[in-house]
Each structure stands twice: as structure tokens, then as C-alpha cells.
């Protein structure tokens, strides 16, 4: 809440009138957070979670657009994204499990063995 | 939420009330369960403290609160303590979305007799109740005990598997009523059985217009799935005493245990409420419509508000009765049926209930299309 107050001094408008670009900025930040996770974490499963985070950030922007452009297509796309994400998670986890079976650890570096 | 201050306050009070209603129902249920189990197993339940042993509830509460507060060494403190608290969330949130009585019209205000009227009621309830898996997992892993972990994994696996059957089994209902909104569903189940088929109305006078008559298979599947969801016998693999000491709450005792109990009973109540709402016409009094009841009470008291209030009250009682019936069935089943084996459980979930639910969905889709389509 304090953060909100601080911004209160700067300008009220940007706080009180929540518009499309608020959501977009939020989704951008979330996306970047996920990207950071993908880049710097080592645990494969955490990597996948970060990817989920990125996907959801995109979902936010989809839904926001679908509201502000008054079209439902965005939400349909969110559907698709969710499905893909679920599939990706399933496969990723299966691979992680098989990696774990061998190395008793799920470090991303074990995937370097897959390099051709 | 509304905009008027009065309305807002009333709504907030309503939320608290619903929560309290659920929480205070738990001890009664505990008592009911113990007495009922005694009755079923042909022994006395707790009957010493107070009349019918009703004071036993109080004693239990005191006992729970005064027990020593400890946590095992291997436990992850945060999760260990957070889990019981989270255990409350799904039940409460879910239950708050179920309409308990017909909307109360007071002056120019209209108060839904439920925590909050959400557009996509079912979806919301399913969503929140699917969060239950976390509490179990947190508890199981957090208490750093292999039995607990095993129980937790089992329980969550079971929950996820049966969510499919749960969700699919009510798709038929949703298609039939053409809505996610519970109030609209209840409104659709008023009076005696009558429905549109091939463009002309078919009506009977000897059956209430309940969902169970349209979707019997869905009712069975849904009820079974709810058993699995709330980890109760015959699906309480999570706490199979024989194999795992007490499943995910092995390490829990005292008040935390109580919270888990509350969560479980909350689950039961949500399930029962949903059963009533989907299949038994919710708060409707059988063979009558809300309007009829309202007119009936308007015959006694002249003020519209009072009549509406009485109507809501009558409906609320009606709903409680239906709720009670289902809760009793829960308890009854628990003390009647033996526990499944784990593979049997999974087979039942994936190979029996899921296909049946799918078949039910497709069938009802076809029928609804054919019927609603006046050729």
C-alpha cells in the first residue's frame, strides 16, 4: 500500500484510472520475471515454472486486449495457451523425472548431455 | 458488490455469517458422526457429557485448544503451520458461493442469501476446491514424515484424478440449464416436472422438477467423485491407517487437527450443497415455485418485505434439510463401506467414472440438441 501512496504524490490519475496499459505493463514485468527465472535458475522444474509464468504474463495481455478491444478472440487464445502450457508441463515433468531417475538431481546442466 | 454503503455492510456481514455458519456446523457434524457411527455399529457414541452428549462438542473444543502445541523436528515450520490454515480456504470459499435461500427483497434492496453471487458459480467452486490439494501436499511434505508424504501424494493424486470425473459429470447439467450460475439452475428446477421437447411442453404433476430426474447418472458420478474429493471413506486412501499411520495429518494434533477437520467437513458441506443445488432443486420446496411460496406467505403477512423474508427463511430451512440429508449419507457411507485399494481407486477414477462421465456428456448433448431443436 505504501508504494501506492508514494505514487499518489506523483499523480493520482495513473493510479485511479486503471487502463489497458496498466495490465500490459504488469504482464511485461511478469514476463520479464519469468524470463529471468529461465535465464538464471538451474533447477529444471523451476525453469519450467518460470516458463509457465511467462505464458501467464502473455495471457494477461491477451485478456486485457480482449477486454479493451471488446473482442473475445483473445480469451480463446488464452484457452489455447493454457492447453499448450499444460501439455508442455506434462512432457517437461516426464523428462525431468527421467533425468532424475539417472542423476538423482534435476540440474539444467544435465541437459547438456543431450547436445548432438 | 453493490455501491451503497448499507448494502456493502450487509454483504460483508453476510460473508462472515456464512463462514460462521459453516464453522459452527462442524462440531455438530462431528457429534453427529460419532453418534451416528455408534448407532450404525450398534454401540453408544459419546453420550455422557450433557443431554445426548451434546456438550461433548464443547469438551472436544476445549481439549483441542488446550493441547500442547508442538511441531516435529524434521518439519518445515512454515508449511507445517500454514497447511491447516489453508485447509479452511477451499471449503469456505466454495460454500460461500452456494445460494442458501431465495433472494431477500427488502425495500429496493435485494440480498442473495449466499456469500456472494458469482456469475460462473460452478467453475469458481471447482477452482477453489481444487486448491485443496495444496493443503494436503503442504501438510504432508511440511511435516517431514514419510508416511505423511506418502499420504499427501496419494491424496493429491486422487484429488486431481477425480476432479476430471467431477467436472465432466456436471457438464450435462450445465448444458441442460445452459448456465454456470447456481441461482439460475435452482430457478430452473422450480415446481413440478415440465420441460420443452420438440417444441411442445411436457408436464407431469407427480414429480418435482429436479435435475436428478434428468441426469441420474450424473448424480451418481458426481456424488461418488465428491467422496473422493473430500478424501472420505471409501476413498480415504490419504489417511489409510492400515498402511500410513494417519496419512498427511499424522504429525498434526490439537487445534491444527481441528482445522483440518473443519476443512474436511467444509468439503463435505460444499459437496452436499452442490448435490442439493444440482439435483434436488436447491432451496426450492418440492413441487412449488418461489413465487407460489411468496404468495402463500403474502396471505399471512401483508408487508412484502416480511413475506419475502419468510420465503427466504422457509427456503433456507428447506436447503438445510437437504444439506443434512446428504451429510448424513456421507457419514452413513463412511461407516458402511470398506476402503478401496489404491489401484482400485485409480481404476475406478480413470477407467470407470471418466468414461461414463464422458458418455453422459455426449449423450446429454445429443439429446438436448435433438429436443431443443423443434424439427
Amino acid at each position: 500500500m505504501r508504494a501506492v501512496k508514494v505514487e499518489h504524490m506523483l499523480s493520482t490519475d495513473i493510479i485511479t484510472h486503471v487502463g489497458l496499459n496498466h495490465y500490459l505493463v504488469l504482464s511485461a514485468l511478469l514476463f520479464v520475471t519469468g524470463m529471468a527465472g529461465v535465464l538464471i535458475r538451474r533447477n529444471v522444474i523451476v525453469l519450467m515454472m518460470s516458463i509457465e509464468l511467462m505464458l501467464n504474463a502473455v495471457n494477461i495481455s491477451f485478456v486485457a486486449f480482449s477486454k479493451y478491444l471488446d473482442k473475445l478472440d483473445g480469451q480463446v487464445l488464452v484457452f489455447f495457451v493454457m492447453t499448450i502450457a499444460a501439455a508442455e508441463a506434462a512432457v517437461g515433468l516426464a523428462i525431468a523425472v527421467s533425468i532424475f531417475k539417472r542423476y538423482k538431481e534435476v540440474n539444467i546442466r544435465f541437459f547438456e548431455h543431450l547436445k548432438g | 458488490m453493490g455501491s451503497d454503503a448499507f448494502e456493502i455492510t450487509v454483504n460483508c456481514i453476510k460473508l462472515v455469517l456464512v463462514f460462521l455458519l459453516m464453522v459452527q456446523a462442524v462440531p455438530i457434524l462431528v457429534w453427529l458422526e460419532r453418534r451416528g457411527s455408534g448407532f450404525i455399529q450398534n454401540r453408544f457414541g459419546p453420550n455422557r457429557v450433557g443431554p445426548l452428549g451434546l456438550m461433548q462438542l464443547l469438551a472436544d473444543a476445549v481439549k483441542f485448544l488446550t493441547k500442547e502445541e508442538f511441531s516435529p523436528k524434521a518439519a518445515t515450520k512454515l508449511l507445517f503451520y500454514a497447511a491447516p490454515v489453508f485447509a479452511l480456504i477451499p471449503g469456505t470459499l466454495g460454500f460461500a458461493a452456494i445460494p442458501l435461500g431465495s433472494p431477500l427483497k427488502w425495500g429496493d434492496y435485494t440480498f442473495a442469501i449466499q456469500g456472494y453471487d458469482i456469475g460462473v458459480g460452478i467453475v469458481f467452486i471447482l477452482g477453489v476446491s481444487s486448491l485443496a490439494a495444496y493443503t494436503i501436499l503442504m501438510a504432508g511434505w511440511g511435516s517431514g514424515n514419510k508416511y505423511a508424504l506418502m499420504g499427501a501424494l496419494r491424496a493429491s493424486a486422487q484429488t486431481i484424478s477425480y476432479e476430471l470425473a467431477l467436472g465432466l459429470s456436471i457438464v450435462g447439467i450445465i448444458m441442460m440449464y445452459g448456465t454456470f450460475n447456481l441461482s439460475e439452475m435452482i430457478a430452473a428446477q422450480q415446481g413440478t416436472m415440465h420441460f420443452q421437447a420438440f417444441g411442445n411442453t411436457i408436464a407431469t404433476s407427480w414429480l418435482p422438477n429436479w435435475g436428478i430426474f434428468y441426469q441420474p447418472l450424473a448424480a451418481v458420478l458426481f456424488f461418488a467423485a465428491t467422496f473422493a474429493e473430500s478424501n472420505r471413506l471409501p476413498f480415504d486412501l490419504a489417511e489409510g491407517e492400515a498402511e500410513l499411520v494417519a496419512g498427511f495429518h499424522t504429525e498434526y494434533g490439537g487445534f491444527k487437527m481441528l482445522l483440518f477437520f473443519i476443512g474436511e467437513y467444509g468439503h463435505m458441506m460444499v459437496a452436499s450443497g452442490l448435490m442439493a443445488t444440482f439435483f434436488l432443486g436447491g432451496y426450492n420446496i418440492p413441487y412449488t415455485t418461489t413465487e407460489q411460496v411468496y404468495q402463500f406467505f403474502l396471505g399471512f403477512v401483508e408487508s412484502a418485505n416480511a413475506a419475502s423474508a419468510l420465503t427466504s427463511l422457509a427456503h433456507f430451512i428447506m436447503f438445510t434439510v437437504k444439506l443434512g440429508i446428504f451429510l448424513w449419507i456421507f457419514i452413513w457411507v463412511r461407516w458402511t463401506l470398506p476402503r478401496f485399494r489404491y489401484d482400485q481407486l485409480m481404476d475406478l477414477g480413470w477407467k470407470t467414472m471418466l468414461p461414463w462421465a464422458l458418455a453422459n456428456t455426449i449423450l446429454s448433448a445429443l439429446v438436448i440438441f435433438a429436443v431443443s431443436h423443434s424439427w
Partner: protein
Amino acid sequence: MTADSFLFWLLAAVTLVSGLSVVLVSNPIYSALCLAMSMVGISALFATLGAYFIAGVQMIVYAGAVLVLFVMVLMLFDLKTELATFSRGKISGLIKIATVGTLAGFLAGAFSMSIEFMEKPATKTVVAEAGVDMSRNLGTLLFTKYILGFEALGILLLVIAIGVVGLARSKGGTHAKH
């Protein structure tokens, strides 16, 4: 400050904080739980955007299924010896952080610079009417305009299901050969 904006800021804060902690917390289980938290927040954000159905689906699919799967796997592994959280390499780490930061700056800047393009008042026709009708429209759209994609996804899911079972059953996993 109206209820809507308050809700937005609250949820945004929750989502962002929990998202950040996904990345920063070293214990994978905690980060999974944080992710679940942020999922809930996101679904609430969907609700504030009037996409109630999507919100519910988000709850069921992500919070209810996918992440539970993650948590289960993590607990199954039960990594007592937590491996090094962050990848080695000072320079590359710096580059990564810098990249991420600049990207964030770019995106945020771009969006906030382009307010006047985007800030078109939402005419509340399709999306606004909450709940059922919108879900109905959504379904109609899904089964008419996007039917092909829908079917494709169905096939994809089938394939994935089979493949994952095969993958998980393989003894020794992907490195069984040596």
C-alpha cells in the same frame, strides 16, 4: 481511488511479488507454491477484466492441476541436498540480468509511452456482460471460428498423454543407453 483500481493494484502487487519470489526463492517447493499464489492472483486479475470463465479455468487448470503436478514431482524428488540455485558464470549472469532489465525497461516504456493509442474507452457490449452470456459467446467462438485449432489441440493432448506415459515408464530415463 475506486474499488476496481484498488483491487488491481493489490492483485498486481501479489502477482508480481509471488512471481519474483518464484525466481528468487531457492527452495523449489516454495517457488512452486509462490507460483500457485501468483496463478491465483492472475486468475483474480482475469476476473477484474470481466473474464470470469477464463479466471475459473485458470484456477482449475493451472492452480488445480498443472502446479499440483509440479509440487507433487518436487515432493517426490524431495531434494534434501538443494543444488546450486543460480547458474554459474559472473559475466553471463551480468549479461542475462542486463538483458532482462533492458527488456523490461523497453516493454514498460513502450507501453506507457503509447497510452493514448491504447486508452480507447471500452464499450461494454460483449465482454462486459458478466458470466454466462460471455461464456456462451466464448464457446460459440471456440467451436466455430477456432474449431480447427481446437481439434488440433485435442490431438496434441492425446499424443502428449501417450508420449508422456512412454517417457515416464522408460527405465533410467533418457540416458538409459549408457
